[in-house]
């Protein structure tokens, strides 16, 4: 078999029984791998009433047909039901773990049930060994990875949880290859609930390539395209993702103090340009990645990776903090403890506003950089106020009677682009099937950055069509599984070419887009069955009611009503956001 390794194993952690999951050629063609095949398998194994922390919940690690082959192919996806949102969720991470899992002989791993004591899985030579992890329980993610490598091989790639996952913090991350994170949606907490400390892999199997000559030529072409593109070939390398700080701030949509303002006066001091001048030691790159957007940094006290754009915002402007060292060290702590930085920062910001309004009688104040690290650590261990922060913003704000102060969609915190500054991004957030996420349809690309074309950010015209298209492309790329940053440099036809030379399957561009649409719709069906509907495709009231008084997004509100019906129509869903029978038939669902 070309592209795929041809083996997905299901393991039950109570009985330790293992079995191969049969995947038909038709299923591979319809879902590819990664997010797509992961979601398909999840929906066959679990249902909308499955408790994310119950033993019968499935946790699925998936690679794709392109994993371990072309540029940027070290990634993997984790699929399960999110304990934070209750939606189906996939979380993506870079590094090399995906490629190494395939070299160990597997396309994916389906994990069910709960071990009666802490364990880790060691995948090698197509086999899975269950090992005792009692001695690893309590270690942070860096210590865990090192310990597992000592017990296996220095070449082992390790995806693991830290204390936050063990303690089922609802936004616990899975960390791999030191500081790469499957961050969003609490996949680390699902892992912790299974008493599963780590999944480790090592091996030397090669991915079979259908057309080796074509593959070689195509890789050279892609390398040249990526290198020539000013974003992938230069900007991301030199300045990382935090180059966005000044850009988004200049557009008056850099969320400040829990989205109450769109301009952060100290943006320059936490920008990518500033990080490059001060903390940056060198760039870092994932497996076979010529871009190298990662930041290896050093403060006076510590060294590690980050901050990237979302994190510099979450611990910076969002909290009124301009101390770059404090932001960076909070980032390091999240990496070590295994926490999603976006939800962590956003929840602290929500808490600060709750305290300011008097709804919560704690002393969490804007700009208090000195306490930031303590709040992060307390959250991972559920100590003191950390036990409440560990719930995420939606539950916290509801508990103190001010649900509108949680800046979330479907329970997931909105990231670093205020939707009042980009109507397409607003629609993307509202209709995202894993909640407040920028990665389902990254409308910032056309509405702010001008890729691939420039769109008027304040217009709602035509945005429904483009959001749906971007959602489908994203679902497709997540199913191949490659890095989304490639999309700055190349369009769908290059992905078609890559799949052809690697798998030998002659997909058309339209067929690939249909795969994306199928995956997105299947996720929607699960969410509908779990009780999500049109009323959940919305944003916090702040974005409809409160206008900024300063900055270039001033006097704007989100005009979701102008786009939502059209979006459902474009998707082939009814007015409640439920896919119509003819849509299901067309997609083979």
């Amino acid at each position, binding site marked *: 078999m070309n592209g795929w390794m041809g083996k997905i194993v299901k393991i039950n952690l109570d009985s330790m029984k293992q079995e191969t999951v049969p995947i038909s050629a038709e299923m591979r063609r319809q879902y590819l791998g990664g997010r797509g095949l992961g979601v398909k398998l999840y929906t066959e194994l679990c249902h909308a009433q499955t408790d994310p922390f119950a033993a019968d919940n499935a946790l699925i690690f998936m690679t794709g047909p392109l994993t371990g082959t072309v540029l940027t192919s070290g990634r993997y996806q984790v699929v399960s039901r999110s304990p934070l949102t209750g939606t189906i969720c996939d979380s993506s991470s870079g590094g090399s773990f995906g490629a190494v899992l395939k070299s160990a002989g597997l396309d994916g791993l389906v994990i069910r049930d709960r071990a009666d004591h802490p364990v880790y899985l060691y995948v090698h030579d197509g086999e899975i060994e269950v090992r005792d992890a009692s001695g690893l329980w309590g270690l942070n993610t860096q210590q865990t990875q090192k310990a597992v490598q000592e017990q296996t091989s220095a070449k082992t790639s390790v995806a693991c949880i830290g204390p936050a996952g063990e303690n089922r913090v609802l936004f616990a991350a899975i960390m791999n290859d030191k500081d790469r994170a499957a961050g969003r949606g609490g996949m680390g907490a699902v892992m912790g609930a299974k008493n599963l400390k780590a999944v480790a892999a090592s091996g030397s199997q090669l991915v079979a390539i259908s057309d080796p000559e074509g593959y070689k030529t195509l890789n050279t072409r892609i390398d040249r395209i990526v290198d020539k593109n000013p974003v992938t070939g*230069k900007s991301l390398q*030199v300045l990382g993702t935090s180059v*966005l700080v000044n*850009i988004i701030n*200049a*557009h008056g949509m850099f969320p400040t103090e829990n989205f109450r303002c769109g301009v952060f006066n100290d943006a320059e001091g936490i920008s990518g*340009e500033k990080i490059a001048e001060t903390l940056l030691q060198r760039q870092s790159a994932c497996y076979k990645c010529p871009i190298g957007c990662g930041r290896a940094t050093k403060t006076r006290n510590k060294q590690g990776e980050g901050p990237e754009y979302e994190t510099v915002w979450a611990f910076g402007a969002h909290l009124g903090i301009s101390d770059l060292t404090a932001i960076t060290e909070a980032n390091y702590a999240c990496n070590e403890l295994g926490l999603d930085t976006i939800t962590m920062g956003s929840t602290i910001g929500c808490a600060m506003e709750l305290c300011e309004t008097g709804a919560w009688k704690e002393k969490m104040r804007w700009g208090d950089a000195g306490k930031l690290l303590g709040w992060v650590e307390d959250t991972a261990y559920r100590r003191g106020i950390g036990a409440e922060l560990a719930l995420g913003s939606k539950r916290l704000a509801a508990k103190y009677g001010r649900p509108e102060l949680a800046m979330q969609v479907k329970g997931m915190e909105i990231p670093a682009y205020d939707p009042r500054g980009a109507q397409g991004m607003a629609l993307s957030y509202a209709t995202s099937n894993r909640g407040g996420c920028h990665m389902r349809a990254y409308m910032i690309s056309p509405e702010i950055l*001008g890729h691939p074309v*420039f769109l008027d950010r304040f217009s709602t015209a035509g945005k429904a069509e483009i959001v749906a298209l971007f959602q489908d492309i994203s679902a497709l790329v997540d199913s191949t599984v490659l890095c989304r940053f490639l999309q700055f440099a190349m369009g769908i036809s290059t992905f078609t070419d890559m799949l052809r030379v690697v798998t030998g399957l002659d997909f058309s561009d339209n067929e690939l887009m249909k795969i994306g649409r199928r995956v997105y719709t299947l996720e929607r069906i699960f969410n509908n069955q779990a009780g999500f509907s049109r009323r959940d495709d919305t944003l916090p009231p702040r974005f409809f009611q409160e206008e900024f008084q300063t900055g270039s997004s001033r006097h704007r509100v989100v005009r979701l009503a102008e786009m939502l019906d059209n979006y459902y129509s474009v998707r082939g869903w009814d007015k409640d956001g439920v896919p119509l029978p003819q849509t299901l038939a067309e997609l083979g669902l």
Partner: protein
Amino acid sequence: MVKFYALLRRRLDTQAVEIESDESSVLELLRLAEKKTGQNFLAELLDPEKKLLTGTMILVNGENIRLKQNLETRVRGGDTIDLFSPAGGG
């Protein structure tokens, strides 16, 4: 005031320049900025037809000139021009 960001800032080694000008087009103002910095950067931002390259962002008081009259957008003394070379992230 013309402010430089992203790679352009590093390339020019300048954060901003103040330009004395009553009223002009963005293009004219940027030519003055070239003189002031002593470096030719405009050619890097334009295609052979003298149109802005994809991804280049020029804001006048926070508004993208692509939504106005592009390089012919009028600017007055006291306006702020933010100039970003192509960039991206997530």
